[in-house]
């Protein structure tokens, strides 16, 4: 099958075009480095099918980061290249284009963001550009789909001129020559977004805007999350799901093996969603009644921030601080993704240049950055005791994140390069795009999380019946009660945390812990061990040895932090 590679500079809209071409949805955002792996999709070309690969963005074919290495590797087994060019940035983009034209593969050039170029007063003579490059050039607007049909119909015209340039200086001269012949600029006024762009790069203005944005984000996430719980999910569970489950409970005879697995234990003759521990009661409730409302609100806000193009600006503001913990500003992007789920966050550490940075960033994310599912449960369970206790958990995690970062910066060998990143222009994303991205993330969360949650509830029930947990609890008793001041049974949720952290926090509910114990156990649970999925991705990204090192650091850090909390609180 023919293999088509979508290549281009970072943040030129490759992922948007990819979705348009193949109908396969992928996450696209307004910052360089959204795509770090590669996504495949299929496109019908007349009678035949072609495979389309969304390649991570790269400025040159001489890679400077892991994500760019992936791009250069991909080039080896493609049949045709769609070179996506940001029409507002012709000169810089043409550097990669010329490098691609020097290769063996046929190329077709796409001038994306054609509308934006127009708004900015940039006019490009497409016919002339085709003539100079020797390959077809198609203007497109990825976000609206304009020009996509044209692109598909002209794919067969792609050719490989195999031009040669002796040196990179010669290449730049050639680019300057091309640009002067095809591009003309017309005057236009400063727009509101340029004023905002400059304000958020200004030191004082930037900090003020950052504080405002972060405060507003937290407020809105909380507001929407609570809103969904109070007005949508809780009423649905109370009026619909509970009566159904009670019928099932009666039908199963209110007790027995299947009853306990499916409905769980009745508490005073009723279903208690946090304590019954049945597949259909606690299992379903934790995901749909507690976690998903927050997943929806978190990813909605994240999507908006990503698409507006705010995150790279935050990276610049945070840069000086992030250097203290062995990273640079851009590491803030994987970190923020980690507040949703640690798996894509660890993947996203590929945008960092050195191995040292990736190790530090991945370890810090696994220790100090709780995922949205875990946070939702902490807010639900610990928050019921008082907001100050939630603040204690977050504060402890933040302190661990900083302190471990300082230590790792001191201890880990290797170097951390400086920040070098393109700051994308602010864009106003259409609501349809935000909505599609949100749906993609929420539905893949449900698909990935729900089976594991239900599986975990099942395993837990069976282990309880077999008495496995009593055995583990007795072994762990000295650490649990001696060091952390927790009842020995708390080891069970900690162990379940390996499967999924949300269900693990849920299992703390029946233990009747004091507020202090809840703070300690949820902090330890967050830091102790990454969940299975994160564990697998850590092993893949860091390699087995570094993954074991990272795990050792996590366990040590969790025990120290938990022990300190037990002493101080």
């Amino acid at each position, binding site marked *: 099958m023919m293999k088509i590679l979508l290549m281009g500079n970072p943040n030129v809209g490759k992922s948007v075009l990819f979705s348009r071409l193949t109908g396969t949805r992928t996450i696209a955002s307004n910052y360089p480095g959204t795509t770090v792996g590669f996504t495949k999709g299929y496109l019908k070309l007349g009678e035949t099918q072609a495979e389309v690969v969304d390649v991570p963005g790269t*400025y*040159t074919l*001489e890679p*400077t980061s892991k994500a760019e290495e992936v791009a250069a590797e991909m080039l080896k087994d493609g049949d045709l290249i769609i070179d996506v060019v940001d029409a*507002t*940035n012709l*000169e*810089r983009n043409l*550097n990669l284009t010329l490098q691609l034209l020097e290769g063996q593969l046929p190329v077709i050039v796409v001038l994306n963001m054609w509308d934006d170029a127009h708004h*900015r007063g*940039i006019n490009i003579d497409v016919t002339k550009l085709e003539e100079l490059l020797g390959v077809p050039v198609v203007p497109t607007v990825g976000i609206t789909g304009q020009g996509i049909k044209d692109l598909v119909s002209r794919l067969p015209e792609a050719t490989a001129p195999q031009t040669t340039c002796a040196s*990179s200086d010669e290449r*730049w001269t050639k680019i300057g020559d091309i640009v002067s012949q095809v591009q003309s600029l017309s005057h236009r006024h400063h727009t509101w977004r340029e004023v905002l*762009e*400059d304000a958020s*790069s*200004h*030191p004082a203005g*930037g900090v003020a805007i950052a504080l405002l944005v972060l405060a507003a984000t937290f407020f809105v996430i909380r507001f929407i999350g609570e809103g969904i719980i109070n007005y949508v999910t809780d009423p649905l569970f109370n009026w619909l799901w509970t009566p159904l489950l009670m019928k099932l409970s009666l039908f199963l005879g209110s007790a027995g093996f299947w009853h306990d697995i499916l409905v769980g234990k009745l508490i005073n003759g009723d279903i208690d969603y946090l304590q019954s521990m049945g597949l259909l009661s606690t299992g379903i409730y934790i995901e749909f009644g507690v976690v998903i409302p927050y997943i929806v609100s978190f990813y909605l806000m994240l999507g908006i921030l990503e698409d507006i193009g705010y995150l*790279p600006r935050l*990276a*610049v*503001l945070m*840069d*000086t601080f992030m250097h203290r913990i062995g990273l*640079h*500003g851009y590491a803030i992007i994987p970190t923020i993704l980690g507040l949703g789920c640690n798996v894509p966050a660890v993947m996203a550490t590929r945008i960092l240049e050195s191995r040292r940075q990736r190790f530090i960033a991945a370890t810090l994310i696994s220790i100090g950055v709780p995922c949205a599912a875990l946070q939702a449960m902490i807010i639900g369970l610990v928050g019921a005791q008082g907001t100050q206790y939630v603040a204690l958990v977050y504060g402890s995690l933040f302190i661990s994140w900083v302190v471990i970062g300082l230590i790792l910066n001191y201890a880990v060998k290797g170097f951390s*390069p*400086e*920040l*070098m*990143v*393109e*700051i*994308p*222009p602010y864009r106003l994303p259409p609501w349809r795009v935000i909505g599609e991205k949100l749906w993609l993330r929420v539905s893949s969360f449900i698909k990935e999380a729900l089976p594991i949650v239900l599986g975990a509830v099942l395993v837990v029930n069976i282990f309880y019946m077999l008495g496995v947990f009593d055995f583990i609890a007795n072994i762990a008793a000295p650490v649990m009660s001696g060091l952390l001041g927790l009842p020995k049974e708390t080891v069970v949720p900690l162990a379940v945390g390996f499967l999924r952290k949300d269900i693990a926090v849920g299992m703390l509910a029946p233990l009747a812990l004091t507020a202090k114990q809840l703070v300690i156990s949820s902090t330890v649970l967050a830091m102790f061990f990454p969940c299975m999925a994160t564990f697998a991705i850590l092993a893949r990204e860091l390699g087995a040895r570094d993954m074991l090192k990272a795990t050792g650091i996590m366990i040590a850090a969790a025990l120290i932090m938990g022990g300190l909390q037990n002493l101080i609180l």
Partner: protein
Amino acid sequence: MSEKLQLTLAKMEAGQTGTVVQVLGGHGLIRRLEALGIRPGKKVTKISSMLFRGPVTLRTNHTQVAIGFGMANKILVEIDTPA
């Protein structure tokens, strides 16, 4: 006649515009900057710099780029004299 003022990007004031003269660095740095459109002969405008030797933001063509203070200190710019 007289030599024009040359400063490193790090020492430029926000709002100043100039032409890149030279990148005082190794081959790797030169190539990475080049890829982002920063190379001798290019017009650059410094937008801002963060406190405590934080990153410098600049504009070249229609792109904004942020680079670390150390790198900014290696980019020599000939300052445009205000008209």
